[in-house]
Every structure is written in structure tokens, then in C-alpha cells.
């Protein structure tokens, strides 16, 4: 008898899958992470690991009330404690120039509103807000000093309870200003079509607050190299956005602010905003005139660097009896802070995923006395997909249709929202491949029909989509006489393996073997890049790598052709035909046209050849609708008496254009599916509303999935290029890896038990 399917599961085959399953159709072969060795040996340096001379340590003391003002701060004992150099608060903090000059934060804000200003005044906006920094010669001394600080408050009535305050939800200011804003009310077709639909679903869905909780804690080492020159080793997702932010905040020329984030130990979105703890470290470094390191505690990760907002949704879905969608009304209310209006694309996919002639969406925010949320992997789409894909499953069940059949019935070959053709869409291919891999034929329409011993077995699926975003990026490429290629870009790598993918693109473009290519990143002084976020890195930086490599080829071609003789053939050669083999430049298919790079450089009296190329989105963006798609299937086993859930198998299929780096791409999908299991089954940050304070704020109480929760995850890619989206043909996949996973699991649980759980996470108590 199967006692617990999770305990008896076979050892994970994920590694094997990663090594074997990827069809290297033509272009890209599996490459180990170029920085893997550095990471596993500890040689990779993260933001908290720069031991600068004279380094001192800062520890933050947080507010213990949710709203009010600070009456007094007694820092005497802390100041007298051994090793303490400064106790900094709004009482004695130096003036931050950017705080004084603008009401709106000076840099281009990722979120509308007034970001929280560290040590600015005596207002308390939420429980867990940084109030004081204690700076000391060692971490332990700073921690001890922090324990001695006594803060008196004038409390005010706070509001943190979403459910109790939902009537106060409002239209975001940006939608009030601009009716075309993505969060403005949307209507397509007949506004009231739902009312008369033959078959209807009307349901509410709740997603609790989830916290990114990457393994690496948020860390910054701030160093004023001179009064007007600032260096930050900062755990962020964008070095140049951070550089811009702090240049403006400190009224410095951007070139005077250097931001280093060579390695980032996961972020999932919490590094897309600059937060008060960063300014706190910079203030502290200025005040003690030493480099200051500040690392948040795990508990502080819940209140200082954003989270996925608690979100209520309602879907009304109407269909004909034979399964054609008639209408979808989708409403969402997401929580935000009292001082910033965070919004996300919770409702976007409802507008474009299915061929419903009539669609209404309505997005609202609820301002509470909490910290500001920020995008968390698969941001709003993952939240929206839970509701939309659950509702699709509910409707399919009401219609007595197979959920895939129902989706195919409402498949759309062009974007009904933008009314543009897709650049590419291979979702049908995903359905087909996934169905077979999960064993969809074993699924029975009637819940509770399949058993394995005492356990109920269910199968479910969920679709995901995310914009194939692309921004401007530039890459510097440098070729030396030995045929080594060095490239640089300011982009970060928060874990997906950006360096690895870029090395592969460069190798593919030039023919230079991957071991002779280095891609340096994570430094604001390198050529232009935005944040690593929104699945846009390969699509943005990849084309710049390609452009830089091609520019090098052009330079070489010109240089070679100028010598005349047999080299004249190079003048008319196409750049695609120029290849590098063993330190030689060749024209493919022409054995006589070969030039040794070293000799060439010597003849021309140069050490190396360099170029910097920028790549930008093109006009195709206005002619086509560009999305990546994903399909997730789950098999779950549920114990009917105890409500235990075991996710037995997950199959993910990604339509993400060309797969540049098969191993790291698979890694992304497996990580996303794991995050989706957390969304579905375990993760929830709970506030005790009497205090407005989190009660589940460490890894013992906030449950991320552990290995025993994560089954065999099978990953497939369609691997067909989308060259309309960008020249490398990629559509991005970090986000689609998680979008659709939670509903796939929730739908599988329904199929197993007949219980439709619309509030995540689905813990055992909800299933008994």
C-alpha cells in the first residue's frame, strides 16, 4: 500500500532531464553555467562579501507599531555600548539632498507615489519600518547596540486588514489620469454579455501575501570614496537604474555613483525597487566616514523589500452550452501601502488569452498601513492566472468538457485585446506535448474517480503568458590577438544564467568556442542595461551581444579586405559567413580565405579590437502582439482523511522562442514550478491585525517548499524562434515558468477531491 506518495517517490530525475531532454536542434548546445564553479566553491562574491578597509556594520531597528509618530528615541545606552560608532535616526540623520528637493522621488519611479524616506521624519507608516540604524565596529556589537535602543510612539489607529477594508479600494491615480493606462477599466464588446450567457461561473479568489524570500538576504555595502563619489555593492536587479536613483537622491553626477552587483543570490523581483535600507546604509557611511555594510535579517525581508500583494479577485465567466466563451468579467483588488500605489498586470491575460468577444476588467488598489509591495516572479500575471485558469477549469467542468478541449475551443490566433497578429504563438504544441507527458488520458472528468491506494489522484492544468518584453541595451566587445572575446554589460544576473546565455549567443554568432568568451556583468560602469526583470534580459541584451559580435566581424572584414590579394574575398563576404576557428578568421565554405588573428593584429599594429553596440526594440512591436506562453500540468495525490497533498509530477512546456541556454532555461522552469508549488500549497505571510504585524516571518513559519514537496518536474520547450520579437528569437521565460502552476495544482486537487479551493495556499485543513 502506498503510505505517502511523497515519501516513496523516486529520486528526482530533474538533473537527468536537464542533461538529456533538450533537443539541440541546431543552434544552442547545453553549456554548464559559466560561473557555476565560482558559485559552488564560494569564490563568487555577493554584496555582503566585500571586506573593504575600515568596514563597519549597521543594524536596523524597526517600528513595533503600524501607524503613528515617534515620540522619542532613547539611544543613550546604545551609544555607550562597546564598539558603537553611531545611532542614526530622523533626529540626527544628515539631510539627503533628494529628500528635500522633490515630493515625488527624483528618479523614474517603478511605483507611483512617495517612496518611504529613511530617517526622514517621525512618521510611522507600517509595522517593521526602519526607524534607527546602529553602526558599530562588528556585526555583533551593532546587534547588541540595536537591542538597547528604546523608542516611544504616539500610536494611531491602523488599518491592515484587507477583508475588513475592501470597500475602500480605489482606482489607481495613474488610471484616473490616463484612461489608456493598463490598470484603467477595460471593456471589449457588450458590457452586459455575462448576464444572458447560457452557462455561468461566478467566483471569488484570494491570494495571500507572499514574500520573495530569495536565499541571499538583501545586502548593501556603501562606501563614500570621496565626498562626492559613492560606490555601492548592492543586491539589486539593475545596476544602472540603481545608479540613476542614488545619483539623483544624493544630487551627484551619475558617473560619480558606481553600483556593483556581480552576483545576486536570487531576487524574484525584490531588487526592482530601491528601498530605505539602501539609503540608510549610504547615510550611515556618510556619517561615520567609513564603508558600511548592512544586511537585512530574514524577518526584515518581510517588511523592507516588498512582497506579492494580498489580492482579491472575482471572475464572472459565461459560455454557450457547446463551450464558446461569451463573456469574462474579471475584477481585482490588490493591497498597497499608504504612501505608494503599487499596481501590476493581474488582469492583462484575461484580455488576450481567450477568444471571448466580451471582456470587462476592473482593477483597484487598497491602501493599507503596510509596506509597499513589489513585483514578485510572474508578478500580477501569476496572481491573475490563478483566478482565470481556475475559472476556466470550473467552466469546463460545468460544461462537461475536457479542460484542454475547452481551451482549444476558445483558442485565439490573434490578440483580441491589441487586435494584432501574434509574433508567434505555439500554445497548441505545448498542450499536445504536455498532455502526453503527464498522462492526461488517465484523467477522469468526475472528481474522485482515480485512486492510488487510499490516495485520491487528480490531474490539472494551467496556462501562463507574459509579454515578450524588450528594452534598449548595449554591449562592449573586445577581441584580443589570442582570439579571446571579452564582453561587458551593466545587466545583472539574479540567477537565470545570463552570463551563460550571452556566452552562447556570442559563440553562436562568431564561432569562437565558449571557453574563450567571457561575459562580464553587474557593474553600472559597463554599457547600458536596465533591470533584470520582466523576462526581458535575453531579448534585450542578447541582440546587443549579437550586434557587437557582428560589428567586430565587420571591422575584421574591412581590415582583412584592405590587404588585398586572396583576402579580397572578405570584402564581399556576408557577415554570417565570417567564422572564427582556432584563432583564425575564415569565410565559411572557402578554405583558401583564412587569416590568423594574431598575425592580422600584428600587421595592423593593434593589441585588440573593440566595439560597443546598442540594440533597441524595433517597429515590429507596433505591428505584432508579442507574448511568451507556458503550459503546466500537475498530477496530485490527496489523502481523503488527512488532507495531505503530494504533488506527484509536474510537466511544464514553454513557448519562449529560441532556447538559448538549454540547461539554465530548464533550471528556470524547474525553479518556477517550485515557486508555483509554494504559491499553491504552502506560502502565506500572515498579519495579526490587532498589531498590524506579521506573525509568520521566518522560514519555520513562512513555508517555502522543501525538496520533499517538489516532485519530478519535466520540462519541454517548443524551441521555435520568434525573430519578430528580437533578432535572437527569444521571448523570455523567467516569468512564464511560474504563471499557471498554482491553478494547475488547484485544478488537479479539484479533480482528485471535488473540492474547489479558491483561497491559497491549499493547506491540509482546507481539504478535510
Amino acid at each position, binding site marked *: *500500500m502506498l*503510505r505517502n506518495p*511523497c*515519501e516513496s517517490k523516486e529520486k528526482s530525475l530533474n538533473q537527468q532531464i536537464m542533461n538529456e531532454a533538450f533537443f539541440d536542434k541546431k543552434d544552442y548546445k547545453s553549456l554548464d553555467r559559466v560561473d557555476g564553479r565560482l558559485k559552488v566553491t564560494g569564490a563568487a562574491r555577493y554584496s555582503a562579501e566585500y571586506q573593504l578597509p575600515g568596514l563597519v556594520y549597521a543594524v536596523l531597528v524597526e517600528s*513595533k507599531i503600524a501607524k503613528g509618530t515617534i515620540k522619542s528615541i532613547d539611544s543613550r545606552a546604545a551609544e555607550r555600548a562597546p564598539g558603537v560608532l553611531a545611532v542614526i535616526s530622523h533626529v540626527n540623520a544628515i539631510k539627503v539632498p533628494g529628500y528635500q528637493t522633490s515630493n515625488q522621488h527624483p528618479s523614474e519611479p517603478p511605483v507611483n507615489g512617495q517612496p518611504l524616506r529613511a530617517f526622514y521624519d517621525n512618521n510611522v507608516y507600517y509595522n517593521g519600518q526602519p526607524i534607527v540604524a546602529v553602526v558599530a565596529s562588528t556585526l*555583533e556589537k551593532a*546587534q*547588541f547596540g540595536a*537591542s538597547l535602543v528604546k523608542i516611544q510612539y504616539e500610536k494611531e489607529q491602523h488599518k491592515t486588514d484587507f477583508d475588513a477594508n475592501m470597500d475602500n479600494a480605489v482606482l489607481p491615480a495613474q488610471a484616473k489620469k490616463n484612461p489608456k493606462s493598463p490598470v484603467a477599466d477595460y471593456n471589449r464588446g457588450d458590457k452586459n454579455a455575462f448576464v444572458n450567457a447560457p452557462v455561468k461561473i461566478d467566483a471569488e479568489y484570494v491570494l495571500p501575501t507572499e514574500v520573495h524570500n530569495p536565499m541571499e538576504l538583501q545586502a548593501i555595502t556603501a562606501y563614500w570614496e570621496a565626498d562626492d563619489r559613492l560606490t555601492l555593492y548592492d543586491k539589486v536587479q539593475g545596476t544602472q537604474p540603481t545608479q540613476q536613483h542614488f545619483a539623483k537622491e544624493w544630487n551627484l553626477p551619475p558617473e560619480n555613483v558606481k553600483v556593483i552587483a556581480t552576483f545576486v543570490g536570487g531576487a524574484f523581483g525584490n531588487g526592482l525597487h530601491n528601498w530605505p535600507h539602501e539609503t540608510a546604509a549610504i547615510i550611515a557611511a556618510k556619517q561615520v566616514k567609513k564603508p558600511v555594510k548592512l544586511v537585512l535579517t530574514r524577518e526584515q525581508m518581510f517588511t523592507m523589500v516588498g512582497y506579492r500583494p494580498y489580492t482579491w479577485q472575482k471572475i464572472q465567466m459565461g459560455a454557450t452550452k457547446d463551450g464558446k466563451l461569451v463573456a469574462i468579467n474579471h475584477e481585482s483588488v490588490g493591497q498597497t501601502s499608504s504612501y505608494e500605489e503599487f499596481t501590476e498586470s493581474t488582469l492583462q491575460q484575461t484580455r488576450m488569452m481567450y477568444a471571448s468577444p466580451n471582456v470587462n476588467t476592473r482593477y483597484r488598489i487598497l491602501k493599507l498601513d503596510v509596506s509597499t509591495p513589489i513585483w514578485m516572479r510572474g508578478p500580477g500575471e501569476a496572481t491573475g492566472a490563478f483566478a482565470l485558469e481556475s475559472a476556466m477549469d470550473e467552466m469546463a467542468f460545468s460544461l462537461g468538457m475536457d479542460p484542454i478541449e475547452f481551451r482549444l475551443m476558445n483558442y485565439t490566433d490573434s490578440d483580441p485585446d491589441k487586435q494584432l497578429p501574434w509574433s508567434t504563438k505555439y500554445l497548441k504544441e505545448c498542450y499536445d506535448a504536455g498532455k502526453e507527458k503527464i498522462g492526461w488520458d488517465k484523467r477522469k472528468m468526475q472528481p474522485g474517480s482515480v485512486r492510488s491506494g487510499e490516495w485520491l489522484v487528480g490531474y490539472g492544468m494551467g496556462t501562463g503568458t507574459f509579454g515578450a518584453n524588450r528594452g534598449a541595451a548595449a554591449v562592449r566587445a573586445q577581441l584580443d590577438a589570442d582570439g579571446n572575446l571579452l564582453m561587458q554589460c551593466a545587466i545583472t544576473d539574479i540567477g537565470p544564467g545570463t552570463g551563460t546565455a550571452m556566452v552562447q549567443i556570442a559563440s553562436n554568432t562568431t564561432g569562437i568556442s565558449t571557453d574563450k568568451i567571457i561575459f562580464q556583468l553587474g557593474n553600472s560602469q559597463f554599457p547600458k542595461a536596465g533591470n533584470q526583470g520582466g523576462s526581458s534580459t535575453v531579448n534585450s541584451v542578447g541582440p546587443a551581444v549579437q550586434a557587437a559580435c557582428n560589428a567586430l566581424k565587420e571591422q575584421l572584414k574591412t581590415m582583412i579586405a584592405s590587404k588585398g590579394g586572396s583576402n579580397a574575398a572578405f570584402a564581399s563576404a556576408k557577415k554570417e559567413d565570417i567564422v572564427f576557428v582556432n584563432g583564425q578568421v575564415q569565410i565559411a565554405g572557402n578554405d583558401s580565405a583564412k587569416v590568423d588573428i594574431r598575425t592580422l593584429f600584428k600587421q595592423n599594429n593593434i593589441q585588440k579590437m573593440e566595439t560597443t553596440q546598442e540594440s533597441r526594440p524595433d517597429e515590429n512591436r507596433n505591428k505584432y502582439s508579442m507574448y511568451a506562453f507556458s503550459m503546466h500540468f500537475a498530477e496530485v495525490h490527496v*489523502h481523503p*482523511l*488527512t*488532507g*495531505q497533498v*503530494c504533488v506527484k509530477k509536474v510537466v511544464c512546456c514553454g513557448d519562449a522562442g529560441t532556447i538559448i541556454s538549454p540547461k539554465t532555461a530548464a533550471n528556470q522552469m524547474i525553479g518556477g514550478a517550485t515557486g508555483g508549488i509554494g504559491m499553491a*500549497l*504552502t506560502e502565506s505571510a*500572515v498579519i*495579526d491585525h*490587532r*498589531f498590524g*504585524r506579521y*506573525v*509568520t516571518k*521566518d522560514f*519555520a*513559519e513562512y*513555508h517555502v*517548499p*522543501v*525538496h*520533499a*514537496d517538489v516532485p519530478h518536474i519535466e520540462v519541454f520547450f517548443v524551441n521555435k524562434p520568434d525573430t519578430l520579437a528580437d533578432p535572437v528569437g527569444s521571448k523570455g521565460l523567467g516569468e512564464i515558468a511560474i504563471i499557471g502552476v498554482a491553478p494547475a495544482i488547484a485544478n488537479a486537487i479539484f479533480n482528485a477531491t471535488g473540492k474547489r479551493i479558491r483561497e491559497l*495556499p491549499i*493547506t*491540509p*485543513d482546507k481539504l*478535510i
Partner: protein
Amino acid sequence: MIQFQYVRTSTPKAAVDAVSKTQNARFIAGGTNLVDLMKRNIMTPEKLVDINNIPLKGIEQQGNKIVIGALALNSQVADSKLVQEKLPLLSQSLNAGASAQIRNMATVGGNMMQRTRCNYFYDTAMPCNKREPGLGCGALEGFNRMHAIFGTSEKCIAVHPSDMCIALVALDATVVAAGPKGERRIPFAEFHRLPGDTPEKDNNLMENELITAIEIPDNAFTRNVHYLKIRDRASYAFAVISVAAALHIENNTIKDARLAMGGVSHKPWRLSEAEKALIGKPASEKTFRNAAEIAMQGAKAYKHNAFKLKLGPNTIVQALKNAAEPV
């Protein structure tokens, strides 16, 4: 962390002497709980007396009982051939707890001395009578999903977090303690306390007493046993509900039975009345369901843990079923 003294000792007597000399001193073994509590300023001992060098790691048969030294590691006990053969319930319960890394550090004595994992106890910004008597119980009207349903008081509704102790109370273990006045034995069921008016006291160990060993009498529960732990993820989470079930079945009749629950009370919760209802009956789902209903008599739920009134008996039934039909 607040500064403290640290001394090492190598005999129980030296340890007891060392701890007796300072007002606010604590023994430290694996430190898997105490160090966390000190980092969060929840416990602030002035002195730590390290007992790891005391030779108390043995696991052996002595006459008609098995004696386990207080410093035996959780993993060592779980993997012991003797324990697996004669006390499989104990081995199962240990492997259900914590993580492999923690089980490699944590000792049997330390496991018994674990403090509750109540969210309010762990946050010094929240009220908690156990941490600071008189502050009030934050959980009573708060987020009490994980909290007790048996033996609560207005002062405290926290639960005891150990898995191992649930098996030990079922197996009629005895605690051996050395103190300033010599050695004494405490029945396991009387070791931990209910909160009453003094929730700050987790157990009945006297001041400066040191646990030196656990004694478990020989029993017939070598085959039909099961420790079933329901939790919010598959591993490395405290029990929402756990059940230790041990049956002695002959000819499909239950000759003897032991039943205890975790995640429901301030102490490991032995279900003696339910055991009586099992004895002499056929090992059937009907018998188990009846015992489970008896077991739940007197349970009282709070705002967020009412599901335990249903999950509790279901888990008892399932644990008994699993025990009756071992894999």
C-alpha cells in the same frame, strides 16, 4: 546577542555545580533551539554550561528497559538498530522532526527541553505570558492556527513542539535527572506541564536539574506502530497534528494499545481513554473511529484552529490504520 559566560563540563555533577553557581544559567547541548532564542533575545542566560563532553550518548538495553543517554543525538537514536528493532515508534517520530542537519546536532535531552514555537513567544514585540509573565497571551485572540485544543488556560494556548516526546509519552518512558540533591526519576507523562497560571514553566524539572537519560520499558509494540505527522509542507515543519499509535494485535484483536497526540497541547498528549476503548476490540476502522471520538472529548478550539477538531480524529484513525497494517 547579549553577552554571556561559557563553561564546559565533563561530568553531570560538575555541570549541575556550574549551573547552580549563577542565577540565570542554562545547560547547552546541541543548541539548536537555545541559540535561536538567544539571538532573538527571547532567552538571555548569563551563563551557558556546555554539557557536550559528558559521556551521556549511550543507547543500550539494561535489563528489561532501553536506556538512552540524554546527549544521544536525534539522528543517532533514530538510526540505532536497537531502537529500530524494539522501539520503532520512537525512531519514526524522530525522523519526522526537524531536518537531517538539525537531527545531527540536537540531543534527546535538548529535544525534551525545546520551547514552544508559538509566533507570539518568538516575537519580543508581541505579548506572551510564557516569555514574560503578565504580558498576556497574544495567541488567545490572535493567529492561533497552530495552537492547542487540549489543556489550555487563559494564560497560554501554546503547543509543545517535539515529535520525539509524543512517542516517548506513548511508550511510558521515564526521565532520569541529576540535581543538587542527587538523582531522581520522573514518569514522562509528568515531565511536561500544562500552562495553568504558570505558562513560563514548560516542565517539572527542578532548578539546576540535568536530564541524564531516558528509560523505556520493553514492550510488545515492535511491529504495529505508526507516527503520522500532518504538517503544512512535506518536511521541516512543525506538526499541525501528529499521532503516535502503537498496537499489539493478536488474531486481529487489539491486546494492548498506546496513543498520543502532538500539536494539540502544551504537553505531549497521551490518550489513555482512547487506548482503553481500543483494547479487546478488533483492529477495524470502526474501532479506530470510536477511539478517535473518545480521544477528542474535551477538546476546545479557537478562532483559527477549529479544523483540528476534525483533523485530529481523522489523523488518529489514519495512524491506527497505518499501525494495524504496516508497510
